[in-house]
């Protein structure tokens, strides 16, 4: 069975919600929809206070090349536009809407019928993705339409679909693959058409046998799609590791997958693309896993964007009394949130509640040079060294040692027996090195 060759870890899977079918979470009384739910420029708000908006109506338009449209997830009156603290912990602008009923825009096909005939051309598909605000739903939220345009002079050989979901706890992609397999594969076919490729490889880790079986069965009806079971290993869901595992090509540091002839999209994104292209439905709701060992009713919910996390926790049985940490995303790469009123956004794949006794960091001891961080690093860096260099402000050397290659998967910190906060320092070093590089560039342009 395939996997990426070097590094990686096996954290406990804890997929508590794997067998919980996706349930629809009703729209709350009010939603807060941030204008930046993607990588790139925040969208420009086009509604005013007091306006009545319908579910699926565009409320903020894409601004610039790397940006995305934002749609209302509910029907109701715009209460205000104001700043809000989002899941990243930073302030940003959001549209506050008071919900009145649930009136969808007429263009959305709300029937259960699966539409498999693809009528749109390649360019029209890309336009539709832009229009519908489709972004990568694996967590990075990069606007999908950009990834569908293969740059001039480059060639895409393979479309790779990421159904790995290697983060512990999360099961939203798994549920979609099991419940919406056919829609996902139509979505994959649409993506193939947009990219002009005839081969798509769908990678799924071997701990999801039901999804592998189901999709393998379905894929017989589709041309060019092959399903690949992968050996379980974190961080296989990282784009570069998945490409290495499936087609044995290494994306060089600072390059894009398309430079080695591959484009990667998430399984959840493929579903969103299906809905946008075949059903005219913009991206305003997604599947979110709400889980935690102390939760009474953990599950997978179809949630409207802008719904406060609080509502989601209530639906899952309420906040356990001993909760010590709430993480947006997976336990390896997610971000802890400091209040439960933050809204669910397009990139929210899961919310995990940790009890207090699992929220504390390990005690920090001296490095014993056991070299585990080196052996688990999927990018074959030397994390202990990068940490030390960053601690001692030796940023030039850190740059030479490849600190900017780090994708922050956290395997080093996870494995360190001395409990050293390796990734904290690597992040700090990375940020500083990037800043210094930018300053250097600006100085150069100034002198030229």
């Amino acid at each position, binding site marked *: 069975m395939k996997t990426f060759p*070097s590094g990686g*870890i096996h*954290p406990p899977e804890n997929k508590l919600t794997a067998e919980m079918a996706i349930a629809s979470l009703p729209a709350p009384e009010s939603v807060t929809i941030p204008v930046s739910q993607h990588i790139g420029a925040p969208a420009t708000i086009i509604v005013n206070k007091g306006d009545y908006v319908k579910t699926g109506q565009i409320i903020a338009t894409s601004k610039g090349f790397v940006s995305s449209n934002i749609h209302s997830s509910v029907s109701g009156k715009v209460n205000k536009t104001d700043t809000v603290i989002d899941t990243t*912990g930073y302030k940003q602008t959001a549209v506050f809407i008071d919900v009145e009923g649930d009136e969808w825009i007429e263009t959305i096909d709300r029937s259960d019928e699966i539409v498999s005939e693809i009528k749109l051309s390649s360019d029209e598909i890309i336009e539709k993705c832009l229009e519908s605000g489709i972004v990568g739903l694996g967590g990075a939220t990069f606007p999908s339409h950009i990834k569908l345009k293969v740059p001039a002079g480059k060639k895409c050989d393979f479309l790779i679909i990421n159904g790995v979901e290697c983060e512990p706890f999360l099961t939203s992609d798994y549920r979609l693959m099991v419940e919406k397999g056919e829609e996902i594969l139509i979505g994959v076919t649409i993506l193939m058409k947009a990219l002009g490729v005839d081969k798509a490889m769908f990678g799924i880790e071997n701990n999801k046998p039901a999804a592998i079986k189901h999709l393998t069965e379905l894929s017989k009806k589709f041309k060019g799609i092959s399903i690949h079971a992968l050996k379980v290993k974190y961080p296989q869901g990282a784009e570069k590791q998945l490409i*290495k595992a499936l087609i*044995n*090509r*290494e994306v*060089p*540091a600072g*390059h894009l997958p398309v430079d*080695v*002839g591959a484009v990667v999209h998430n399984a959840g994104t493929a579903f969103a693309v299906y809905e946008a292209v075949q059903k005219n439905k913009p991206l305003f709701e997604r599947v979110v896993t709400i889980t935690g060992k102390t939760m009474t009713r953990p599950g997978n919910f179809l949630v409207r964007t802008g719904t406060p996390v609080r509502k989601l926790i209530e639906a899952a049985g309420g906040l356990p009394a001993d*909760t*010590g*940490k*709430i*993480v947006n995303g997976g*336990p*390896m*790469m*997610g*971000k*802890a*949130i*400091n*209040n439960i009123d933050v809204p669910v956004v397009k990139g929210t794949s899961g919310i*995990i509640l940790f009890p*207090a006794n699992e*929220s*504390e*960091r*390990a005690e920090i*001891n*001296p*490095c*014993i*040079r*056991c*070299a*585990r961080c*080196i*052996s688990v690093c*999927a*990018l*074959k*860096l*030397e994390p*202990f060294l990068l940490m030390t260099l960053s601690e001692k402000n030796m940023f030039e050397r850190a740059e030479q040692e*490849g600190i900017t290659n780090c994708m*922050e998967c*956290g395997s080093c*910190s*996870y*494995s*360190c*027996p*001395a409990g050293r906060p390796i*990734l904290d320092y690597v*992040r700090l070093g990375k940020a500083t090195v990037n800043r210094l590089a930018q300053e250097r560039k600006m100085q150069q342009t100034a002198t030229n």
Partner: protein
Amino acid sequence: MSNLLNISPSPHTHGKDTTKKLMYGVVLALMPALFTSVFYFGTGAVIVTLTSVISCITFEYLIQRFILKKPISITDGSAIVTGLLLAFNLPSNIPVAIIIIGSLIAIGVAKMTFGGLGNNPFNPALVGRVFMLISFPVQMTSWPVPAGFGTGYLDAVTGATPLAIIKEGLKNGESLSGLMEKIPSAFQMFMGKMGGSMGEVAAFALLIGFVYMLYKKIITWHIPVSVIGSIALFTSILWLVNPELNADPLFHILAGGVLLGAIFMATDYVTSPMNPKSMIIYGCGIGILTVIIRVWGAYPEGVSFAILIMNAFVPLMNTYIKPKRFGEEVKNG
């Protein structure tokens, strides 16, 4: 909300291994060899081990408490490992006072002066051992013959190690085939029935520890295999060139401290290199130096010196031998 949420950055989960667990894992892996040693050398083995372990822990405590005035870390298990390894490298009839001096050198000089756990360039137990070998050559080289559990401590019957018998004999012009008859058979050596340091004799017990540490992922195969492999290769060449002057590779691996050194001393985290490529170079260096000292040097045994010499190259290797980064050399196919 009444209670504050923890917002430390990712990862939000941590593996189960801790420094303590790894150190106690090594201690456990050393147990088969310790039991065998007690079985062969009796009371002496118990006294030497206890003295060494207790004095190592005590010196670490005293230095941290009164000189460094830092938090006490004797429970992390590293001092116990040093104490055990030092004891394993001593003859079982060595006087207590000498062990205490050795422990002071091991912990005080080789470990704590550099800043304690994680900072010492040389293996503390080996520094202690070599210091004792140079300072007390007579006591350090009078090896009790394994005589069973009932053996007394200081009055044990002593004899030369197989390596010393060969070295002395060859110097006196005896033939190797004649000398081979004076030493235990390969099977006896594998079971540990020969003169030597108390922990190094029983090959099978050390190998049990090796398998345990590999299974528990405490160490990787790279260093032990390259040490043993390079010794086997080098001595095979010498043996094939002149079997009348050079002992066979199996003898070289089973005699003396090769297995103890390769499995437990050379793999010491702090003083060994950190990436697989360097580990193999380091292991081969130890193997080659060991054979050179054994065959051409003044001492019959050279594992300790070989490891200490290679320890000195570790910082250099860590600086100049780098793993090839992911995506550095594009090979697409």
